[in-house]
């Protein structure tokens, strides 16, 4: 949404971009590595570029790679991506009062562009939704500047990663950096004992059910973990 003059001419746009800048290095590194991991998975360069430009969701891209290699059916890949992305559903609920006054295409544009880091920075900067039209425009401009730089560093460095990856021998195992990245995000989500339980149950179930065809072990593991956690909540009244 960085292409709208009413947003990029607003002083909050530059502020949003400036506040993202310290994070941009990390986003660039993550993009670079996702680019390398995509090529190393055996996808064609064209497929990697299309994935970078359209999907724009590092964790779901990285999670899809081992499944695509294993020849998992499309619905398992999509269901996995959906579950990995469910945190965004929570973000969209939080962002709703900030954006719901906008026309549909602008709501969808901002929603699509807002990934983890931008969401966190935006919510930190604006604890409450704007009440006047000026406040709302300022918030929208900040979000657009923040998202815009985030998108730019992600896409640029993913494309650089795709270009470089062809020169790196597969035996080096650089694709493992993608797994470490997912591991870092996984640890960042471990914010309560119940979530840790969910992760442990899912990990164990995914290993135990590994022999299932079509990578169904992933779906079984997610279902087992969520059902178990909801049951524990109900029995113990844990929050």
């Amino acid at each position, binding site marked *: 949404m960085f292409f709208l003059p009413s947003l990029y001419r607003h002083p909050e746009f530059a502020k949003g971009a400036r506040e993202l800048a310290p994070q941009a290095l990390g986003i660039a590194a993550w993009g670079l590595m996702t680019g390398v991991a995509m090529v190393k998975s055996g996808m064609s360069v064209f497929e990697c570029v*299309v994935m970078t430009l359209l999907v724009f969701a590092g964790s779901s891209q990285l999670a899809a790679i081992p499944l695509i290699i294993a020849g998992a059916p499309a619905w398992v890949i999509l269901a996995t991506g*959906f579950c990995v992305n469910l945190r965004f559903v929570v973000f*969209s609920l939080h962002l709703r009062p900030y954006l719901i006054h906008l026309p549909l295409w602008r709501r969808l544009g901002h929603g699509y562009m807002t990934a983890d880091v931008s969401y966190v920075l935006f919510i930190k900067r604006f604890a409450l939704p704007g009440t006047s039209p000026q406040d709302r425009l300022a918030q929208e401009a900040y979000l657009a500047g923040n998202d815009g730089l985030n998108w730019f560093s992600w896409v640029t460095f993913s494309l650089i990663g795709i270009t470089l990856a062809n020169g790196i021998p597969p035996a080096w195992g650089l694709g493992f950096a993608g797994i470490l990245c997912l591991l870092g995000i996984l640890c960042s989500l471990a914010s309560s004992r119940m979530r840790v339980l969910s992760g442990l149950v899912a990990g164990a179930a995914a290993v135990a059910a590994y022999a299932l065809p079509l990578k169904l072990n992933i779906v079984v593991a997610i279902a087992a973990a969520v059902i178990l956690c909801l049951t524990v909540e109900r029995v113990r009244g844990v929050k």
Partner: protein
Amino acid sequence: MTDWMNGTDLWTLAVIVAMAAVTVVTRCFFLISNADWQLPLWAQRGLQYAPIAALSAVVIPEVVMQQGELISTLQDARLYAAVVGAAVYFWRRDVLQTIVLGMAVYLPLHLGWGW
């Protein structure tokens, strides 16, 4: 066909386009309709647990399994890289450092010792 198109197939492209649709639907889930409505409570609670479950279900087998079997050796670079990576995350709260230090453990063990 040029080199960069090599190995492109329609099935993978269709999956990629559908993944993009998943990005839009999840990131815009509560922005699509401006009518007042709410998720049932159990679904709202379930949202708390599904993302970590999905990541764990993908990551753990990639660390502890080899060719469909649970590994039976401790001479595997992935184990040490993952343990160090997780420890670094909880110490520094930074995904980038998790990747860099995890790979700093992984590469020497993997390339040097062949683990």
